[in-house]
C-alpha cells in the first residue's frame, strides 16, 4: 500500500497543505493572482508610511471586521446556512475580552491570552448554538430567525446590566452604556510593554492576522472538509447518503464562523477599549450580510475585498449622516441581489479572468 497522510514526511505534508491554497472552492490561481495578491499586501504594508497615525488606526478598524465577514462567508456562502446573528459571537467575545482583561490586567502578554480565550469562548458558544440548531433540524430561513433571536436576546440582556450587582470580578457590565476602560492589546517587551493603540503597530498586527486567516481559510476550503461543505450547500440529502454526518459538518462550520466573528469582537474591544450592547443589535447584525453579499459570498477572496470596499464606502457616507448611509447599504444589497446575485467582486473577478484567458491565447 502507498503511504497514507499520517505517514507522510512533514515536508511533503506541508506541500500538500500549500497545494490546497488553490482549488475549486477558491477563485484565483497561478502567478498572476499570487503576484497581484503580493502587491496588494505590499501596498497595504507601505500604507502607514504615507498616512498619519489616525488614518492608519482607522484602516485598522476596517481590518477588524474582515474576520467576521470571512466567517460568515464560510457559514453562509460555503455551507449554505444564512446566519443573521454573527454579532452574537462578536459581542460575546467583545465582552469576554473586556471582562478578562479588566480582571487579569495587561502585564506579561495577558491581553493576548484574553484575546485567545475570548475567541475560544465565542467559538464554543457558536458550537453550542449550532448543535441545538442543526441537531434540532432547523433549516433554511429558520436558521436566520434563530440566530437573529440569539443576538437580539443578548443585546437586550446586556442592556439591562446597569446595576452594580452586574459585575464579574473587577468588571462592571454597565448596561446600555457598555463597558470601557479595558487595556488595549499589550506586547511585553524589553524596557517596557508596547501598548497597541490604534495606529501603525496595531495595523501591522491586524494585517498579518488577515493574511494568515485568509490563507488558512483557503487551505481549509479546498480540503476534504471544504469539499463536503459546498456539497452540503448544494444537496445535504445526497451528502448524508454518501456516509457523511451532515449535521456535524454544519455544526463545525458554524463554530468556525462563530470563532471568526469572536475574533473580530475581541479585536474591536481592544481597538477602541469599549463595547456596547448595540454591537449585537439589529443594525449591527444586518451589516455583515451586506458586506458578504455585495462582495460575493461564495468566494472567500470576494468576501474579503468586498467587505473592505463596502466598509470604506460606508464610512465616507456616514460623514453625511448614518441613517442616509444605511439606506444606501440597503439599496446596494437589493441591487446586488437583483443584478449580480453572485456578488460584485465575483462578477468582476470572473470578467477579469475571461479577459486574461483571451489575451493569453
Amino acid at each position, binding site marked *: *500500500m*502507498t503511504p497514507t497522510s499520517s505517514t507522510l514526511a512533514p515536508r511533503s505534508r506541508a506541500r500538500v497543505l500549500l497545494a490546497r491554497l488553490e482549488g*475549486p472552492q477558491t477563485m484565483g490561481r497561478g502567478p498572476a493572482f499570487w503576484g497581484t495578491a503580493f502587491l496588494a499586501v505590499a501596498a497595504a504594508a507601505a500604507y502607514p508610511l504615507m498616512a498619519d497615525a489616525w488614518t492608519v488606526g482607522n484602516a485598522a478598524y476596517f481590518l477588524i471586521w474582515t474576520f467576521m465577514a470571512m466567517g460568515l462567508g464560510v457559514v453562509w456562502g460555503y455551507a449554505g446556512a444564512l446566519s443573521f446573528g454573527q454579532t452574537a459571537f462578536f459581542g460575546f467575545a467583545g465582552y469576554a475580552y473586556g471582562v478578562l482583561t479588566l480582571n487579569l490586567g495587561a502585564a506579561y502578554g495577558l491581553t493576548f491570552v484574553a484575546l485567545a480565550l475570548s475567541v475560544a469562548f465565542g467559538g464554543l458558544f457558536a458550537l453550542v448554538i449550532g448543535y441545538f440548531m442543526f441537531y434540532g433540524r432547523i433549516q433554511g430561513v429558520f436558521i436566520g430567525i434563530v440566530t437573529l433571536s440569539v443576538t437580539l436576546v443578548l443585546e437586550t440582556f446586556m442592556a439591562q446590566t446597569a446595576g452594580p450587582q452586574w459585575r464579574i470580578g473587577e468588571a462592571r457590565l454597565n448596561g446600555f452604556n457598555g463597558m470601557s476602560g479595558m487595556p488595549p492589546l499589550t506586547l511585553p517587551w524589553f524596557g517596557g510593554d508596547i501598548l497597541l493603540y490604534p495606529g501603525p503597530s496595531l495595523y501591522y498586527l491586524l494585517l498579518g492576522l488577515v493574511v494568515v486567516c485568509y490563507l488558512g481559510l483557503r487551505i481549509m476550503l479546498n480540503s476534504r472538509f471544504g*469539499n463536503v461543505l459546498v456539497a452540503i450547500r*448544494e*444537496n445535504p440529502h445526497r*451528502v*448524508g*447518503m454518501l456516509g457523511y*454526518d451532515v449535521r456535524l459538518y454544519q455544526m463545525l462550520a458554524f463554530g468556525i464562523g462563530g470563532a471568526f466573528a469572536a475574533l473580530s469582537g475581541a479585536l474591536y474591544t481592544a481597538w477602541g477599549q469599549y463595547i456596547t450592547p448595540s454591537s449585537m443589535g439589529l443594525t449591527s447584525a444586518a451589516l455583515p450580510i451586506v458586506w458578504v453579499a455585495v462582495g460575493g459570498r461564495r468566494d472567500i477572496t470576494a468576501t474579503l475585498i468586498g467587505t473592505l470596499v463596502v466598509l470604506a464606502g460606508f464610512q465616507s457616507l456616514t460623514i453625511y449622516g448614518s441613517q442616509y448611509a444605511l439606506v444606501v447599504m440597503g439599496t446596494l444589497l437589493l441591487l446586488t441581489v437583483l443584478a449580480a446575485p453572485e456578488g460584485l467582486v465575483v462578477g468582476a473577478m470572473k470578467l477579469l479572468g475571461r479577459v486574461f484567458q483571451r489575451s493569453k491565447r
Partner: protein
Amino acid sequence: MSEILKVEGLRKAFGGVVVANGIDFSLSAGAMHCLIGPNGAGKSSFFRLLLGEHAPDAGTITFDGGDITGLRSFQRIRRGISVKFQVPGIFKALSVRQNLEVAFQDHLHGHSLDATIREMLEFTDLQGEEMTPAGILSHGQQQWLEIAMAVGVEPKLLLLDEPTAGMSPDETHKTGEMLHELNARGITILAVEHDMAFVEQIAERVTVLHFGSIFTEGTIAEIIDHPGVQEIYLGTSDV
C-alpha cells in the same frame, strides 16, 4: 450463499396509507435482484426504510450480519449500503470532478484521487466532462454520475431506484452493462425497475411488490407467466 440483507415484518403507515405492510424479504450476497410493482406500490418507500429515511412502525432490518434498524442513514451508508435515487441526487452546481471527489475522498486506501477519478470517468463514459458542472450533463449522464458516486463509498449493497428512467434504449442497455460490471466486482444489486427488457438484462430473480406487501418472487420467466402479476399490471396504464 450467505444473506446480506434480511427484512422481517417491516411495517410503515402514513396516516391511512400503508406503504409497507409487513414485508419479509431477503437477499443473498452477490445477487442481482429486481423489485417491480405498479406505481404507488411502495417500492421507493421500501428503499427509504432500508436507508433509514423513514423509521418503521414495526419490523427489523439486518444487514451484513448486524441489526441496522435503529441506525441513522449515514451510519447505514458507512456499513455498506449505497443508493442511486429515482430523481438524480447530484451536486448540480459543482463540477463532475467535485461530485466524484466528495464521494471518493474518504475511500481511497492510498490510491491516488486522480487515478480513481479517471477510472470512474471512463466507467461512466464521462471522459472530457471532468470540469463540466454536473447540472448541465444530459439526464442519462447525470444518472451515471450518480451511480459512480454511489459506488464511491465502497458499498456491499447498491440500491437503485429506477436507474434507467428517461434513458434511451442504448443508454438503458449500457446501464445494464455497468451494473453487471459492478456486480462482478462483488457488489450486490437491488434495483427498482419498470422496463422489463432491462429487468431481463440484469436480474436473476424478481420480487413483485403490491400495496406495500410482497406479492410474489421468482425468476423472470416465472414472473412474466404469473397470471396474478399480469392482473396487477393490467390495472395500471404506466407499464
